């Protein structure tokens, strides 16, 4: 395991995370048996994702084998080992959304953003992920962007919502340059 991490770590060296941010969490949970999942959740809240350096740090501090930490982190879909974009698009692929044609929406978003589900656009603006049921089935098909739900969608609406976000970003950055 080590050799693989070391190699990938070199790529991450550029933005090596501040380990001390995690001290408080570790102090609270270090001695509580069975709290690994909780610690990983808190770490992800802090860093936005779980870089390998953080995983190794948690393993050391909690006295758990690195392989076990990695095993748990990769088992649950909530944990992300790569950074995410500014806007996370949760596209619902639950049953109600599926029968109300959510698949063409996915295809349209893939074409628009030029990324596949699970990936992030190179400008780090959008991450596209599929989820199973956002719990607003009567609005199906639905997507959620940073906590705000949109529905009922069709491919066209979905694409134009994403375009609106994009336009908003461009305006903001142009405004910033002028100021």
């Amino acid at each position, binding site marked *: 395991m080590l050799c693989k991490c070391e190699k990938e770590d070199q790529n991450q060296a550029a933005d090596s995370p501040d380990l001390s941010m995690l001290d408080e969490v570790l102090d609270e949970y270090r001695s509580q048996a069975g709290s690994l999942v909780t610690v990983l959740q808190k770490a992800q809240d802090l860093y936005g994702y779980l870089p390998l350096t953080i995983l190794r740090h948690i393993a050391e501090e909690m006295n758990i084998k690195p392989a076990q930490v990695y095993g748990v982190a990769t088992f649950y879909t909530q944990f992300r080992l790569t950074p995410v974009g500014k806007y996370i698009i949760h596209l619902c692929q639950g049953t109600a959304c599926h029968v109300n044609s959510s698949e063409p929406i996915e295809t349209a978003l893939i074409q628009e953003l030029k990324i596949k589900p699970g990936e992030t656009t190179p400008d780090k603006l959008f991450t596209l992920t599929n989820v199973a049921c*956002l719990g*607003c089935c009567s609005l199906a098909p639905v997507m959620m962007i940073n906590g705000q739900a949109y*529905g009922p969608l069709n491919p066209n609406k979905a694409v134009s919502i994403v375009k609106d976000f994009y336009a908003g970003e461009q305006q903001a950055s142009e405004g910033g340059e002028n100021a």
Partner: protein
Amino acid sequence: MKIRIGLGSCGIAAGALKVMEVLKTELDSHNLKLEIQQTGCIGMCHNEPLLDIIEDNGQTFTYGKITEKIIIAIIKQHVLEGKLVEKHLVNSCANPNDFLAEQVRVALRNCGIIDPEQIGHYIDRGGYEALKKAITMSSEGIIEEIKTSGLRGRGGAGFPTWFKWNATRNNPGEIKHIVCNADEGDPGAFMDRSVLESDPHSVLEGMAIAGYAIGAAEGIIYCRAEYPLAIRRLEIAIKQAKEKGLLGSNILGSPFAFDIRIKQGAGAFVCGEETALIASLEGERGMPRLKPPFPAQSGYWGEPTNINNVETFANVPWIIAEGGKAFAAMGSQTSKGTKVFALAGKINRGGLVEVPMGLSLKDVIYKIGGGIKENRNFKAVQLGGPSGGCIPAALLDTPVEYESITATGAIMGSGGMVVMDETTCMVDVARFFLDFTQKESCGKCVQCRIGTKRMLEILERICNGEGQPGDIELLHEIALKVGEGSLCGLGQSAPNPVLTTIRYFQEEYEAHINEKKCPAMQCKALITYRIDPDKCKSCSICAKKCPVNCIKGEKKKPYVIDQNECIKCGNCMEVCPTKFNAVIVE
């Protein structure tokens, strides 16, 4: 007079927070000082956002699909002049809504009525009276009462609740645990979320009663991380209950002590299975293990543990307060009480529905749900999610009760009920669920891990028009092996969606395999969208609405779809004016 707004996740998604804001400014501008109360979901998702006007005499008027304009009208007409805004009224005592009128609410008794963030509201409606009564009873007495009620687990399997409680109570061990399963994994179900968001105290009270009966001092709620609002409201509820001495030590002045904490899941369907859930609670990968030993014998940290579903717990206070007999008086011979369903899909009135067991599927879908959207024909209803199956029109008279539903090849499940119409492809539905289970398989058993993958491959090739003779038989054969060779319910029931669709819709499979046709016009590889040059009037509407810009044309010439680019979304067909109807699907 006071005003009440539904602020469940789905109300919020439909824009209820905006409604709240507008309402406040409007009231201010009229200098009106009315109380605005938040509440959870009444379950009329199809009418969200909802707003209730409650008159001083208690009469309630519910308005639906609220917009800024409607708020202004309501304030002007109803609040100021006392005249109803009939057009937007969806429920009132004089004119009860069919959706609500047919329901019997036990688990949802407070949902959409109380403010879930105020314990006082719960107590005013008789909350925590059951706990008060319980601690004067013996634990045998409570378990006996639950036995009389006939309550069966609402998490899916329908196991008698009293039996599990009794086993956990009698098994040796100093320390025992209560776990509430709020992992709600079925993709298309949201009953538990709504209960937690709308009436968290009913679950806490149910857990405390179970704790007293079993002899446990601690309860854990394992809740999906995808339910942030439910978690927040639970946290508030736990804090308030502790302040009132309804949780913690010396509950209501008695020696009984019981505490509840929340543990967030991390997104794995299989963690809804009880042994996997326990592994996850212990900070491990959530992988099921062989039973026995059952959690009642050896659960959390090897100690006797009783796991129940959210809805199961929500029923408990009602049963203790009203008596097991009253609960058993509802429902059918083998399935007592009521059941909550999340009605969704191609249905006119989707939402949260609680009905007495034994009501027919037809009544749920037509009387309560208002039938199929756009007057299309009903094709099937899916019960039980990835572990369940599709029930066809011919069996719509089946009553909702455990044994009858199981006899159709589906399962009652936790309450997801997704309605499908003639435009739903049943092979695609089977593929959809297999895709889900295959991804969610924990990988421990070969049959589940590889078998579901092979089944998915076959279903994918059938949907792609590459099905071969013998595929149906092959699916059958693998399905049996997967069912037999799997350790937990995920693998054991994974074949159900495939087996039921083959059983009731074999001709659809055959059309895909033999004629390379998708009768429901859904499977992308088997259909093409085309513009009829004779009918097209070159209005360019479709070209503007195509999400991938693959319709080209110019004035006076028929438009043409570039088949290489087309993602077959059907948008063009939808937007082409009906007087032209130039887009055809084949």
